[in-house]
């Protein structure tokens, strides 16, 4: 090189050779070593993607389920017996057919009322407004 002759005449006269060598067969194997690393990295990447996708999907499904059930009216609204009785007493005239109500009360308690005494005793045991009942009778 002409430029080197002027800057470093001694260096320019040295034989230029690459003194660093590689082990025998190194360049025969290197392309396949690199290909193997490329393939393994691609697999790792796809496994990571797959796991991320799976867990992501499961998480999303869980959130959607939670949102869905949160929006549903609960079946487990607790109403006490006293509240039911109070409601019936208040609305017995407008909303309830007494015959059907009596049937329901009887069947729900699984009792067979065969006589008037039994019926009277049953009514007295229930928390029903007697005044209202008398008026109805």
């Amino acid at each position, binding site marked *: *090189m002409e*430029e*080197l002759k002027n*800057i*470093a*005449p*001694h*260096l320019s006269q*040295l034989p*230029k*050779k*690459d*003194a*660093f*060598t*590689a*082990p025998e067969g*190194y*360049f025969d194997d*290197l*392309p396949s*070593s*690199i*290909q193997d*690393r*490329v393939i393994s*990295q691609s697999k790792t990447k796809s496994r990571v993607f797959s796991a991320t996708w799976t867990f992501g999907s499961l998480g999303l499904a869980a959130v959607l389920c939670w949102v869905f059930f949160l929006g549903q009216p609960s079946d487990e609204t607790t109403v006490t017996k006293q509240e039911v009785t109070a409601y019936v007493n208040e609305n017995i005239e407008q909303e309830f057919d007494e015959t059907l109500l009596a049937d329901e009360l009887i069947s729900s308690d699984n009792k067979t009322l065969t006589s008037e005494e039994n019926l009277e005793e049953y009514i007295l045991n229930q928390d029903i407004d007697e005044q209202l009942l008398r008026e109805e009778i």
Partner: protein
Amino acid sequence: MATYSDKELLEMFHTEQSSYAFNLLVRKYQKKIYAHVRRIVIDHDDANDVVQNIFIKVWKGLEKFKEDSELYTWIYRISVNESLTFLKKKRTKFFIPIHNIEKEMSDKIDAGEHFSGDEIEKKLQKALLKLPEKQRIVFNLRYYDEMPYEEMSQVLGTSVGALKASYHIAAKKIEENLLGH
């Protein structure tokens, strides 16, 4: 084995033969890149790690490679960056001061493993280790790879004028070292 031009390899890569094209590309550049990296990191095992990382980066980047720049200068740019990153990591990993890393590399040259040079060549390589890293890379690209300054400018992102000055200074320092001044 047929030698393909970079353009042909890129065309092949963008069709369905990407793995085959990449394999050909590795075979085309592996010796040059290995030699370039080896001159920077000195040790063969280190050079092997760096070269593999370089080609994996090339593989990952080929999809988005802008064909308005030269494939060959792009690969060299990755090589320079990876080699410098490797040395930087080595220093921070082992908390080795700069002079000790150069001492370690100098000892490896003396050990002569995978090194076929004579005493003058050893002296030259040790003189090169005394240069700042970037100056050493400029010298290597110009002296060994005989890369034109315009291409070196693309590889290193430095102006042609600055590269000429850097090469000039590096060659002077090496000459003085070889003459024992």
